[in-house]
């Protein structure tokens, strides 16, 4: 029955992966920009939640809103002020630009917060409960539920709101959207800011699970890559599916081959997928 436990652990992890990746996927799909900053955004969100908890006693689950808002503002400024200038340039240019920005942000965090690992130790943890033979840590499950909830909210936002429809329109055809009266530059900035919001929210959720350090940025970025390619580009359901699949795969591969092989395996899987199905598991370009 150990397999039920491993699958459950994988799903809990996978829900968080989905939340990590969905903002990254949105920015990639709509702006055609690979946002190397995403990993550092998540770490920054974790720090916001950490300081809010340590100094103000605000529970990280409530800090989702604070971390999200801080990152939304940062993302909006970065996109409107800097990235919009070259958003139509070739891949090399946008990729190099976000890499440069990431070097700055990550270095700033290293100087401000040091590389020491911080952790949020909750005063009132939810404890563990069990369903049949499967033991579940309460806080992690709550974080995963919130992560999936946020992902669903983003999906509804894209489907039902005016701004969401405008984002999808820009994604489908930039020129046509501009001709229909969509302010493409503003939509670019809002999309990037929403991506940053999701990163900040994911960071706040992760703060109760993973140690917090600027050094973790590339790790989260790697997860976002893998989930994105697994699920297909720019699609919210794809990111959700990709996240859950990656979580389960990592969980089982650490059980079978040892945790140190899990990263290698997920990268090997990614290379294989890029080789056979670059459009992702769902196999179509996702328009919400």
């Amino acid at each position, binding site marked *: 029955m150990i397999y039920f436990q491993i699958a459950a652990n994988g799903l809990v992890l996978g829900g968080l992966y989905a939340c990590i990746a969905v903002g990254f996927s949105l920015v990639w799909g709509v702006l055609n920009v690979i946002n190397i900053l995403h990993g550092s955004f998540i770490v920054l969100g974790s720090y916001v939640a950490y300081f809010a908890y340590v100094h103000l006693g605000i529970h990280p689950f409530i800090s989702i809103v604070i971390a999200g808002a801080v990152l939304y503002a940062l993302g909006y400024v970065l996109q409107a002020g*800097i990235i919009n200038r070259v958003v139509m340039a070739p891949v090399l240019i946008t990729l190099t630009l976000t*890499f*440069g920005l990431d070097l*700055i942000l*990550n270095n700033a965090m290293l100087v401000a917060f040091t590389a020491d690992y911080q952790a949020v130790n909750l005063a009132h943890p939810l404890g563990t409960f069990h369903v049949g033979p499967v033991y579940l840590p309460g806080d992690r499950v709550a974080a995963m539920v919130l992560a999936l909830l946020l992902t669903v909210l983003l999906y509804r936002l894209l489907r039902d709101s005016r701004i969401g429809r405008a984002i999808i329109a820009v994604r489908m055809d930039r020129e046509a959207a501009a001709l229909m009266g969509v302010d493409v530059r503003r939509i670019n900035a809002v999309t990037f800011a929403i991506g940053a919001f999701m990163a900040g929210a994911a960071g706040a959720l992760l703060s109760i699970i993973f140690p917090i350090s600027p050094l973790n940025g590339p790790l989260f970025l790697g997860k976002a890559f893998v989930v994105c390619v697994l699920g297909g580009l720019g699609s919210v359901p794809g990111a959700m599916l990709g996240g859950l699949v990656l979580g389960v795969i990592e969980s089982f591969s650490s059980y079978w081959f040892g945790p140190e092989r899990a990263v290698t395996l997920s*990268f090997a899987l*990614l*290379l294989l997928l*890029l*080789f056979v199905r670059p459009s992702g598991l769902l196999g179509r370009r996702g328009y919400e």
Partner: protein
Amino acid sequence: MKNWITLVVLAVLLAVLPFVSSNYVLRLATTVCMYAVMAQSWNFIGGLAGYPSFATAAFFGFGAYTSAILQNHGAPVMLAWGCAGLAAMAFAAFIGGAILHLRGHYFAIASLIVAEMLREIVNSMPDFTGGGKGLNLPILRISPTAEAQFFFYAMLGLAIVCTAVAIVVHHNKLGFGLRCIQQNEDASNILGVNAYAYKTAAFALSAVFVGVAGAIYASWVKYIEPPDVFDVLIAIKPMVMVLLGGLGTIFGPALGALILLAFEEVVWRNFLTIHAAALGFIIVLLVLFLPNGVASLWREWLARKEPAR
């Protein structure tokens, strides 16, 4: 022809450097040559074919480890370096066959992951590669000055060969085909350019000299470990250098290497804790304001001067 003369003049000027400068300057010059090799190599795939390759770090580390392992099994230095280059080239041809059908972002990610995979593989085979503990290399039993000169001439020779190959490629069918691929791959395929073969050739070319550079670097620093030789910055710096010097040009990469190293040296000396941010800052400024490289300033200045005459 002009390019060949420039190359010969530069080579002669640099060859006398050891007789007129200190070991410190020589060390910097060796690094410039190494950077120039990396930038020039990346230019084959990134500048000519327009494929944003992040695989430079993979080739560098592959060459460094190949040479280190061969030398620890008793191979002579030069032979190990040569084998490292050939091994990196074969590896690139193999990997290129798998990932070169991807384009744009997908290719960028796939090439980025190659180095991560190699790093993990090296880490997971401690008996063969030393794992996370790294590998020591045999020490050359010569004086420090002689050693500095030896490695300087090795890197300089490599940079000259690499630039010579670049000049040949820029003017032959391969270079022409790669530029066609950069402009429109589908069209060039229809017009009879075997895009797949050309891209693979460019990818292999972008690996061979980097592999040798990695091997020389390993012998030079005498100790390698995975985070050092598979560092993602090794993949990023060549792009920055080529962007600095000018995309798809012959001497642009070398110029970019010189500028980047000078900048790095100033930052490392004065602001150690923020050196990454400083590099990031220069990247952002470069991309926003000088996407055609420093050399474009010169050309613009010439163009502005022209009508006045």
